[in-house]
């Protein structure tokens, strides 16, 4: 299996993405921002379509859109807990813009209409080029480093925001930086495994880890570990069973991990505090 080029590229690109998504996901779940991350993944879709409609590099559209909206979301959420209703309204509009760009794109280049949409929506980790994989690996590794740097203050600001403010931590800036990182992750994941499935690596491993332990650092490690396991297992499964799309295989493993965690541990009262 490892002698195949496309498998090697998938592993090279996917491994840092999975580690970063797992770790970011734990904070996302802890801060109840899964909806915000979901919105960012849809924004990635709209950004890519906008770039396609205008005719510029897709990657530029992706990153500009996700980071821009991430900062907008950070500005909207004045409280520590993000405002789901405002995010919902924004999401509806972003999807509406996606519809517009899809229309414009279809009109400018009839024929290949559904292809670009389904490629950005679902991606294919088995269809990466060498340069795609290199970029993914580099950006992914940079993300992991960035998370490691802000992990400790971010955890403090998440768990005890008021105490963190009195200690002089820049809580608002941390939140914005965090959402921007999620935006970068959304753009990166969109290229590799597709906009719609990015949520799988963010929500499910972290949700499982959050159920299993209240120890933050252990949960961070577990979450990244789960994400990585599901990526590798999913790729192997999809390789063995040709009719199984890799994205579905990865999400299948992730969901299984989550269900097992849910069944074995009902969550402690301490976890229910939030």
């Amino acid at each position, binding site marked *: 299996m490892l002698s195949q080029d496309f498998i090697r590229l998938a592993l090279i690109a996917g491994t840092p993405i999975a580690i970063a998504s797992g770790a970011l996901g734990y904070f996302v779940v802890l801060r109840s921002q899964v909806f915000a991350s979901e919105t960012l993944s849809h924004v990635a879709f709209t950004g890519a379509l906008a770039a396609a409609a205008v005719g510029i590099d897709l990657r530029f559209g992706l990153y500009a859109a996700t980071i821009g909206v991430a900062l907008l979301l950070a500005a909207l959420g004045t409280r520590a807990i993000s405002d789901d209703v405002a995010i919902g309204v924004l999401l509806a509009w972003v999807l509406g813009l996606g519809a517009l760009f899809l229309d414009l794109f279809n009109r400018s280049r009839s024929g290949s209409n559904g292809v670009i949409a389904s490629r950005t929506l679902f991606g294919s980790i088995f269809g990466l080029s060498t340069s795609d994989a290199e970029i993914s690996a580099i950006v992914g590794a940079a993300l992991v480093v960035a998370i490691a740097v802000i992990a400790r203050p971010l955890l403090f600001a998440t768990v005890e925001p008021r105490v963190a403010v009195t200690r002089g931590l820049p809580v608002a800036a941390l939140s914005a930086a965090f959402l921007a990182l999620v935006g970068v992750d959304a753009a990166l994941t969109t290229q590799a495994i597709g906009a719609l499935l990015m949520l799988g690596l963010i929500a499910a491993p972290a949700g499982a880890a959050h159920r299993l332990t209240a120890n933050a650092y252990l949960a961070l490690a577990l979450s990244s570990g789960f994400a990585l396991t599901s990526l590798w297992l999913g790729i192997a499964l999809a390789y063995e069973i040709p009719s199984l799309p890799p994205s*579905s295989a990865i999400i299948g493993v992730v969901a299984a991990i989550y269900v097992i965690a*849910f069944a074995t541990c009902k969550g402690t009262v301490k976890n229910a505090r939030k």
Partner: protein
Amino acid sequence: MNPALTWNLPEDVRQLFVYPFMVNALAAGTIVAVMAAVTGWFVVLRRQTFAAHALSVMSFPGAAGAALAGLPLSAGYFVACGLAAGAIARGSRTADRRDRSQESAVIGTVEVVGFALGFLFLSLYGGVLENLESLLFGSFLGISTSQVYVLLGVAIGALTFLAIAGRPLLAMSLDELVARAGGVPIRALEIAFLLVLGLAVASTAQITGVLLVFALLVAPAAAAREFTPDIGFGVALSVAIALAVTWIGLGLSYYTNISVGFYVSSLAFGVYLVARLRRRIAHPFGDRPRVVSIEPS
């Protein structure tokens, strides 16, 4: 067909009703707008927009699964939405309390599993689901008269449920402990609401696309809640906004040939922005004047 917009407004409006498909589209849009606006008011009150989004997305695996099994599409929609509503209601509680972190993780997981299954069914089906685009973004062309009647039936059912269960649902959304002490069956009501929401969303999405449902479900209700904390007035305002946005959106789409989803979501977003700005100006220092609100966890 190439209708042109003139400055003669009555003539323009008359033009809208020339084609039967457009009459059906307007009828379906009206039904959907009313149902979504009323249901959406409760969604916004209960802060369940994410759950609503996940349920609306379930029409994708529903459609793909139904195509694979050779069943009618609507059967697939309803099964997928029902299963997802059950899973979300089951998973979003820890130690019998609503748990925000866990709730958002469960909804995200349910949603992404839905996508993965939809993608798997699609790949097993082998064919191209050529209406993927209209599934997501809606196409109001070709709505049959019988579809309008089905939609009307679902809307009456959903609105009847809300009329009966509205009071206990409101009580429970405001203060769960007090409602429980008053004998409100919390869990049952929670699941029932999600199921009705799923039903409403699934039936609507077949015609208007996932996107349009969501825009109509959240934005008008959120805007209405910015304007007034009053319940009856708020629901009425939400319905009025949804209707206006739908009719104008359909009209614009008819004349410009750009997706109706874009117009409806942009108009709804605009109304919401105006509502927020107005509150910011009217209450520069205070929070919104709320009679009803959920403790922000």
